[in-house]
């Protein structure tokens, strides 16, 4: 296809006004397993499906704590995600050290957005191959942002990225107006419901492949894995049982 003429590097535009290298990088994000983020008046939550390459291997960590008030979930090249989370952690620490205050979430996300943008413009560099959902709490309330390899940063009430995430987004679009007044527990369950829509036939959410993260006004950034997710998964099943009755 003639797409191949303009896709050699990030410094080349196509005649249609596209930078193919950046679009290819976004494909890497779509290959990663789904993550869902949603927020209420007081809390913001991340839920993710963890994947394991084979039975011998562990399940890949999807949610990372940046600071007491901030966390991220990744989809795509986890090595790129690691580099970005280390950068965010050092920025968060710098803010506390210099100004004695928690790094405002919007600034943090714009910082990595700007970093990603340079990789879409300088010759010889490759775009980051990871998308992030960044959650955090600061003086202006709870926030949920999407970061993408293009450097584009957007804020959301609820969103999802990764494999088959469109199904989750459809679910969130139907329900997001209710999230504002929900409790933390209800928010997590709705997140898990949306996440479940991204699973293939026959697959289930269980304590091995589910990761939950949340932060709020009086709640430090917390990540739940393994047995700790059982309680929420049970509530998810209960909810299902009640609905079918």
């Amino acid at each position, binding site marked *: 296809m003639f797409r191949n003429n303009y896709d050699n590097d990030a410094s080349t535009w196509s005649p249609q006004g596209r930078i193919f290298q950046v679009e290819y990088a976004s494909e890497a994000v779509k290959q990663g397993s789904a993550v869902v983020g949603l927020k209420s008046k007081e809390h913001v939550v991340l839920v993710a499906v963890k994947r394991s390459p084979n039975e011998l291997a562990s399940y890949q960590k999807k949610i990372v704590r940046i600071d007491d008030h901030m966390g991220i979930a990744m989809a795509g090249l986890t090595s790129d995600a690691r580099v970005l989370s280390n950068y965010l952690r050092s*920025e968060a620490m710098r803010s506390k050290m*210099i*100004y004695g*205050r928690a790094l405002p979430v*919007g*600034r943090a996300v714009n*910082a990595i957005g*700007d970093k990603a943008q340079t990789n879409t413009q300088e010759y010889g560099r490759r775009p980051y191959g990871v998308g992030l959902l960044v959650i955090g709490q*600061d*003086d202006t309330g709870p926030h949920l942002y999407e970061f993408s390899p293009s450097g584009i940063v957007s804020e959301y009430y609820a969103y999802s990225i990764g494999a088959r995430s469109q199904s989750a987004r459809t679910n969130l679009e139907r329900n997001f107006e209710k999230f504002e007044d929900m409790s933390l527990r209800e928010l997590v369950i709705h997140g898990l419901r949306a996440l479940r829509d991204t699973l293939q036939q026959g697959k289930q959410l269980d304590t091995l492949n589910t990761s939950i993260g949340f932060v709020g006004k009086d709640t430090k950034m917390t990540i739940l894995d393994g047995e700790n997710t059982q309680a929420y998964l049970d509530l998810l099943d209960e909810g299902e049982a009640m609905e079918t009755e």
Partner: protein
Amino acid sequence: MDPIEFRLPHTIQRPKATPNHGPRTHTTRPIVTGTSVIAFKYKDGIMMAADCLASYGSLARFRNEKRLMSVGETTLLGVSGDMSDFQHMQHTLESLLTQEYDMDDGQKLGTKSVYKCISNIMYNRRTKGDPLWNAYVIGGLDNGQKMLGFVDLYGTTYQSATIATGFGGHLAQPILRRRVEGREDELSEEEAVQILDECMRVLFYRDARSLNKLRRAKVTAQGVEISEPYMLETNWSFAESITGYGS
């Protein structure tokens, strides 16, 4: 690019290119100086005072100086020591405030952040052996909480209900401690002004580098207010009874 990056002058951040091996410049002594600043917490917030003098050694050189400045809407800064170093700090803080304003994201730089920032600058300068020869008093309201702190040329910091720099530490602090400590939430504005004036009067009598022209400032929930200069009533009649006084 980095929104909270700190661009500090060449004395702190090494220039990236090969430096032009010009002369080294380190602060060795203060030249134009301001004397005491005193401050304390009272019912509605913080009250602070400093005279309007910038001395040139023993010469009372600049007699309409502003040693109290507002930083944003909720913080008050008082300075003693070298005035040129203070002006440098003023420029740095102005830049910082401008950067924060340009962020346009609803975030406000609170008193605690200004305090931490100044402390970091002061300590880093002292570590380079090129101090900003000042003592700062930083006061304000952070989410309704009264905050009052001190930073000096060594980078030493502390917070207290009463702060005084220079001679104020010797002459005013005992008065402040007796009158204010424990009563920060009860002291009315009238009484606070009275305590402030009493301390500044003592300082004018006894500090040979002071001036009877001072400014008073307060931070309350309504914001920062710095008064116009005013004089205190003094009584020098005792001088006549002492042989040789004043000659």
